[in-house]
Each structure stands twice: as C-alpha cells, then as structure tokens.
C-alpha cells in the first residue's frame, strides 16, 4: 500500500511538472490558434539564459550572493524572453495573419530549430547548473503507519506548488482581466477580434511573452532537476499527451491532464512494466491520451467545435 501511495504521489508531482510545460502550449493556442512546437525550445532557451546569467552576474557586478545573481539572472532571462516574443511577432507571425493553421504550425517548427541553435550558440552547449536552493534530499512521512514511511521528493513538492500558483495566476488573468478576454477573443476569430478593435499584433506579443515567462519558470524548475542542457527541449514531448488529453484550450485541462498522465505513466511503469519488459511510460502516456480521444476528441476540457454546414 505504501509503495502504491508513493508511486501515486510521485506521479501526481511529475504530472504537475508536465502541466507547467503544457500550459505554454495552451496559452499560445488559446490566443492564436497556433500549436506552438517551439515551446520545448523556449524552455531550453529560457533555462540556458537563466543558468548562464546567474553564472556571469557575479563576475560582472562583483557581488557573489547567489540570491542576487539568481534575481538579476531571472530579470535578464525574462527580458530575453520578451525580446524573443517581440521578434517572433515581428518577423514571423505578423506575416502570417489569417493563414492556414498548418502554415503557422510549420512556422513554429522553424522557430524551435532557430531557438535551439541560437540558444546554444549564445550560451553554449555544455551542461549548466541552475541552483535556486531547491532541496534535493527526500523526506519520509507516515513512518508510524507504514514501515519505512512514504517518500516525498521535496524538490518535486515545491515545484508542484509553484506550478499550482502559476496556474492559478494564469486562470485569473484569462478570466478576469480585459487583456485575458481579448486573448480569448483573438483565439476565437482573428478577423472578428480585429473588427472590434483588438490590436492583434500587441495581443500576440503579450501572449508569447506570457508563454515565455511560463517557459522560464518551467526551465528553472526542470533545469534545477535535470541540469540545463539540450534534453530540456525534449521535455515538451512529455507534455504533448497532457495537452491532447486535457484539451488545447483549457488551462485547468492542462493541470488535470498532467495529473492523469503523470499518475498513469508511473503506475503503468511500476505495475505493468515488469510484465512487458519495462521502459513503457513514454508510449503509455500517448496511448492513454489516445484512448481518451476516442471518447472525447476535443480532450477533457477542450471546446467542442461545431461548424454550421
């Protein structure tokens, strides 16, 4: 029982981390109808900026405090993500208004390759460290109930809390602010939004900025866990089944999807894996998402699209 609970909790926390990346996909899709293949590259780019700036800041300023270095690095990395968002809007999206979804998708694929290359070109392709003081040692709870207790990974727990806070803030932003409503209007229909005076270009910059900041938070958390290196870009692949399952237009869907995928893949690997040779968690996540799609093609919380014939 204790082991089942441990796996379940581990899965839930891993799921929250996937959600963090999945939210980036959802944000951009909600606001522009674009499935942003560059989300993983944005996570890598942001994490590289954070890691390298926190390394360089003490040398530039002569202040060796890690808190100072991390704070300045966070601000600088945030500014870089803003510049990236602005450039993407200026150089790519502005020229693709009202184009087919597939065209925009291919454009984000190109952006992904560019960001990966430019990021590694500017910041290097070695393994870099983000040390924001996340605890690495485990804690054991309920030791008097279960022998050996239940293991909780403190780092994952804190990361899950941060992810939850971010999700709460984004939900409020989308539901309660004028900009949030404008973002949703743009997502619904570019032309209609423009006709009522919503500035499409500004909205796109804003949403790519928000997605950039989300990528920065995800990059810091994943970078602190795994080290900052190219593999961070592949983390986005882990978030794909989450958005398929949760629905591309729903922030709460990304969270619930993340939790289901996280728990599903961990339980499958631990309890089913030994019977089929193990190493199944990645494809199992996709299979789980596909099974859900058979019953709800729009995902758990996605909007059902009804077209008038």
């Amino acid at each position, binding site marked *: 029982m204790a082991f089942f609970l441990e796996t379940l909790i*581990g*899965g839930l926390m891993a799921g929250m981390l996937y959600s963090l990346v999945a939210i980036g996909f959802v944000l951009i899709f909600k606001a522009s109808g674009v499935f942003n293949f560059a989300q993983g590259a944005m996570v890598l780019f942001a994490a590289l900026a954070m890691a390298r700036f926190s390394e360089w800041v003490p040398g530039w300023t002569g202040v060796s405090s890690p808190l100072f270095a991390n704070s300045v690095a966070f601000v600088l990395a945030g500014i870089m993500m803003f510049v990236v968002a602005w450039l993407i809007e200026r150089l790519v999206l502005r020229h693709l208004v009202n184009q087919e979804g597939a065209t925009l998708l291919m454009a984000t694929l190109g952006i992904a390759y560019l960001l990966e290359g430019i990021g590694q070109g500017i910041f290097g392709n*070695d393994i870099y460290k983000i040390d924001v003081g996340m605890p*690495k040692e485990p804690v054991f709870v309920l030791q008097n109930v279960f022998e050996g207790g239940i293991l909780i990974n403190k780092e994952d727990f804190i990361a899950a809390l941060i992810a939850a806070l971010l999700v709460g803030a984004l939900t409020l932003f989308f539901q309660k602010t004028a900009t949030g409503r404008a973002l949703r209007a743009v997502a619904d229909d570019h032309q209609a939004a423009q006709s009522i005076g919503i500035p499409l270009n500004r909205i796109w910059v804003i949403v790519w900025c928000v997605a950039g900041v989300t990528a920065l938070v995800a990059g810091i958390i994943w970078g602190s866990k*795994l080290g900052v290196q190219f*593999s961070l870009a*592949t983390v986005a692949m882990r978030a794909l089944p989450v958005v398929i399952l949760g629905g591309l237009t729903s922030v709460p869907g990304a969270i619930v999807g993340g939790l289901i995928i996280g728990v599903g893949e961990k339980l499958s690997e631990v309890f089913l894996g030994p019977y089929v040779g193990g*190493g199944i968690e990645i494809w199992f996540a996709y299979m789980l998402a596909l099974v859900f799609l058979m019953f709800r093609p729009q995902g758990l919380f996605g909007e059902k699209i009804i077209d008038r014939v």
Partner: protein
Amino acid sequence: MKLRKLALAASLATLGLSSLITAPAYAQAKEQFFPVLVYRTGAYGPNGTPWANGYIDYFKLVNAKGGMNGVKIIFEECEFGYATDRGVECYERLKGKHGGATLVQPLSTGVTFALTEKAATDKIPLITAGYGRSESQNGAVFAWNFPLLGTYWVGADVAIQHIAKKEGGFDKLKGKKIALVYHDSPYGKEPIPLLQERAKMHGFDVQLLPVAHPGVEQKATWLQIRQNKPDYVLLWGWGVMNSTSLKEAQATGYPREKMYGIWWAGAEPDVKDVGAGAKGYNALALQHGAEPNSKVVKDILAMVHGKSQGTGPKEEVGQVLYMRGVLSSMLAIEGVKKAQERHGRGKIMSGEQVRWGLENLDLDQKALDGLGFAGVMRPVQTSCLDHMGSSWVRVHTWDGAKWNFSSDWYQADEKVIRPMVMLASGRYAEEKKLKPRTPEECKQ
C-alpha cells in the same frame, strides 16, 4: 622584341622556381583520410563533444610532430546527433572521400550494429574502443570490428568481480540483488547476457530496469529500486540519463556508494551538475581516468592548444571523455603505423592494410610510455582471434569535485567471457553464412 624575350625569360624562370618550390611540397602531400563521426549537438552532445575534441586534438598533435612516418592526417567531421540512421548516412557520405576512409569510429553501439556488415563489404575497419558488439572480439568472424581495450561484457564482468571483492568473495554474492539501470538501446542491453551468466554462476538476482531515451524521466525506475532495495545498482547510461539517475538516487535516498557505472557513465558531464550529491558514486575506468598530468596532455597543451590550434576549450584537455577520444585516436594511428611497418613506411595505407595493422597491434609499456601514455594505460596486444587486445579496468570514485582511482587493476575473466564470445560469434557466422577465417587466412 628585347622586352618580349625578357618577359619570356622571366616567366620561364618563375615557372622553374615555382616548380622547385612546389616539388618538395608535392612530395609531402601524402595524406591519410579519417572520417570523424561526431555528435556535438542534441541530447548527447555534452558527452560526445569532449570525445571528439580529444580525438581530433591527437590527430593535430601527430601532424605537428610530422605525421605518421611523414603521412599527414586529414579528417572531416560529420555530425549525426547519436542517431543511428544519421550515423550510417555520415559513414556513406565520407567513406569514399579523399581516396577512401582509413577506418571509422562511430562512438555508438547502434551505429556499430548497423555498420558491421557494410564495413566488411567496403573493407573499412571499425574501431569501437569500449563499446560496440561484445562478440566482435572474435576477429575470425568479425574481421573488420575492433572493440579495442574492452567490451560491455568486460565491463559487466569486472563490475561483478569488484562487488564480489567488496563482499568478501564470489560465494558471498549468493542471494544478493543487483539492479541494472540501463539505456533502453543496443548499448544498454549489451551487458545483460554476461550478468545473467554470472548470476547463474554465483546465485545472485539481476533486476533489469530499462530507461527510455534520453532518460530524463526515471522516477518510476527509482521508486522500484526503493521498493526492491537492491544491494547494488549498475548504471549503464549515456548523456543526461546518468546525471538524472544520480539525482533520482539522491532523491530516493539510495546510497551512491552502492552504485557502479560503466565507463560511459563515469565522466565529468555525468557528475558535475550533481556535485556533492554524487559523492561516493563509482564508475569503471576503461584503463584511464582524468589524466591532466600525463605527458600526452602536456604535449597537446604545448603543441596544439599552445599554438591556438585546440579543437575545444583548454580546460577540458585531460578530462575523462577527452582522454577517451585521445586514446581512440592513438590506437587508430598506431594501427596505421603498424600497417606501414609491413607495407611501407611513409605510404598511404588502404583499409585492408590498416586492418592487418590493427590485428597485429603490439603496444608494450615502453611504446606507450614513449607516446606519452605512461600511467594512463596498460599494454595492448591484438591478434586475429582477439580483436580486443586487453581488458584492463579500474574503478574510480567521485569525491564531490573530482574522480579518484579507488581500486587496483582488474582483468575480465577469460574463462567466463571467451565461451560467450565464441558462442555468440558462431551464431552470427551461422546466421550470416560466414566462414570464420583460418589462422592461415589471418596471416595474409
């Protein structure tokens, strides 16, 4: 008219002079081509890059010292991102360039599997120092494969020997649990037959825990380790998988002192991000470790980096994977030089001639010391039947800041490995309808 004659004379004189100048240069233009398959980008880039830099820096060092008995080394890189299909593409693209490839070192077990038959057809030797197919030690069947210095069966065998020594003998292994956390690829699967063989012999239990590429998600794996409580964990990872394993071990409280990595899981990129969290973690050393004080490193610093010709950053010179690249390069070059002893010093060698050289390598300690490898490695002697040449392995341990040797030298147990090699290579020969080479054929 006079002016025309003067111009003609001047032109002829210039022509004569230039031919005098170019003649020696033409005579020196003997070049031996080495394709270099690398992965400097992608998930495995941080590990592939130092190997490639060491490999190329040694070429530059040899060229700076006058080449291979006067033959200059030329090389061309091809980036394949540790993807088997792209690795094969690189091989195909480079094999015929500059008069033909001397040999190929793919730095990937997957690519080695894919190239084994192609290389035999193209007559290009494949050096797979410390990786590749374990049964390819048998040169009678695998005439073109050279798993020099050690295979994964050697690594697994030495790991079990070391654990047995720590436990007080092989008999103490009975009832123990040893988990293998491995990269779910041909590379990661290679040690399984040897471990199962040793498990049968000594009565321990092997738990197999595959990790999917690239290995960034291992929570389920380490929860299973926490539940099963193995006495030891063998780590057969590559790239980000290694540091992730160490971080998960820390997060689940598994003692790093009980963990033993293969030599591809025992370098700086695997531990530097984990730092003190990896303290006590052990890994096998394919003879060498980090060797910043070796003579060959000093030579590279002076004659390559000192002349601004270094391939990578100066700080990585002498690190573990950099040294692996240097060793791989040296073995290749010594193979060519050995071939030259038979087929003509100062001549360009064909693939077939180089194969003979690699198959008759005889690097004793004096020769190695002379090349600058004193303290770095032990003698290597290959033959037609033994394309590996040696199986010396040590263990080194991460102290939180650097690798330190923590064991004496081991050699793989031939009594265990040889029958496995003969059985597996025999099966391969049967499947591919190959006739193993006879001792007479080997001499040719």
